């Protein structure tokens, strides 16, 4: 595969938590190419969220290179322009929605990108309409339900027209109706994405390949083969191998 065409390319990334000597990411390599729809299923604490934050430049790795759109990024300054091209959906929507009303929040990204008030408002409304939640336009953000917040947060990310989406457990705490809505929305998108989730059915419904993580490294689907079978042992819900 041509390296220059990859959207995100992590090479040899090592990351420690501040004040700790345990490697969360250990010489990790990851490549996301246009059109990729990758799922990531791994146990809690294996460094999935850290991985996403490293891609966004929110966690500074101790070693290794991060290349996004073929450009190696090292400083905070380098990350600024690419952040709008990568949409990160946070685990907790309350972290992401900080404006008083839904429309303000969805328009926040476009306004930062320099769109005029009118254009930003139009973009926000269009995005809400695409996700079928235009009726929330004037709702007060903190009064929405968990599922509504998740959809609005997704709209907020999509309003910036990213080229790749990183989703951090998008289904956590949601009921089946919202989950199905999410599946429908994700399958309708024409951009690449990388989904972290614990839910096999969801990952299977929205992705083409499934990765896992172990000891700070990524196991690609050549190494793992996820399937469902009856279980009694303790790792039944998590990716595992039988020897």
């Amino acid at each position: 595969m041509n390296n220059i065409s990859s959207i995100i390319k992590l090479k040899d990334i090592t990351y420690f938590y501040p004040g700790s000597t345990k490697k969360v990411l250990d010489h990790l390599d990851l490549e996301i190419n246009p059109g990729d729809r990758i799922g990531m299923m791994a146990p809690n604490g294996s460094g999935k969220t850290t991985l996403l934050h490293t891609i966004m430049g929110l966690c500074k790795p101790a070693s290794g290179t991060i290349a996004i759109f073929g450009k190696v990024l090292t400083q905070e300054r380098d990350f600024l322009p690419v952040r709008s091209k990568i949409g990160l959906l946070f685990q907790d929507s309350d972290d992401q929605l900080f404006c008083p009303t839904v429309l303000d929040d969805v328009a926040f990204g476009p306004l930062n990108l320099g769109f005029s008030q009118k254009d930003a408002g139009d973009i926000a409304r269009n995005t809400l309409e695409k996700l079928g939640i235009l009726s929330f336009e004037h709702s007060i953000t903190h009064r929405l339900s968990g599922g509504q917040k998740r959809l609005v947060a997704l709209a907020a990310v999509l309003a910036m027209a990213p080229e790749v989406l990183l989703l951090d457990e998008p289904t956590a705490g949601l009921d089946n109706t919202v989950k199905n809505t999410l599946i429908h929305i994700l399958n309708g998108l024409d951009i690449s994405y990388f989904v972290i989730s614990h839910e096999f059915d969801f990952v299977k419904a929205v992705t083409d390949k499934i990765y896992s993580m172990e000891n700070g490294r990524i196991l690609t689907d050549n190494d793992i083969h996820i399937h469902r079978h009856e279980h009694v042992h303790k790792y039944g819900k998590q990716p595992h191998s039988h020897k």
Partner: protein
Amino acid sequence: MIEEKFASGQSLIHQLDPKIRILTSIVLSVATALCDHLYLAGIYFLISIGLILMAGLNGMDVLKRLKPLFWFLLMIWIILPLSFDGETMVRLYGLKLTAPGVILCCKITIKSITILLIFTALIATMTIASLGNGLHRIHVPDKMVFLLLMSYRYISVIESEYKRLLRAAKFRGFTPKTNLHSYKTYAYLAGMLFVRASVRAERVYQAMLCRGFNQKFHTLDVYPSNRLNSKFLTGISVASLSLVIIEIFWV
């Protein structure tokens, strides 16, 4: 949960630009606070009643909003007439009520109610979002506007976090009593709340960075220029100014 009960409406006041409403409320309340004459304070009071009527607010609801103020005023009415120096007005069971004390109480009562009514009519009739927008446009520093908007957004999140912690403590058999263990538990709760709030603040900031935040505050609201705005601002300013002049030269 913060209710914005008065924020929706179609009255004359609701149609005014938030900026204008903030400015007029500042002008009027400063003039009221500086006024030192009982009858003139009465005129300000009538103006504030007029504004409440213009905003079309429910009288009972407005009275409910004034309730905390009434407790404060009650305290003043108990203390001041008895303790203020001056000519004795009434003697009651060996206690002296002084005339200047009673007059001062009247002034404080009228002025404080007036100022609160002005703010209810002009400021409480807009959403926090519009208030932030208005403050931004009268050049209040962005940091302060952000502080207001963020507090409004996250106060309920922090409240629910506090409730969750308290519930978790209660489920493990915690019953508040007057002892060291209870105080310690509450101190832990408060400490934990601070820790969580600061961790959340960091995550919110990261989320803002991810969406291209560059320390600038943009807003969507556009208020069409309305001829009412300038008329209202001029009217209120002229009224306050003339009352101030009357007080200085004639009273």
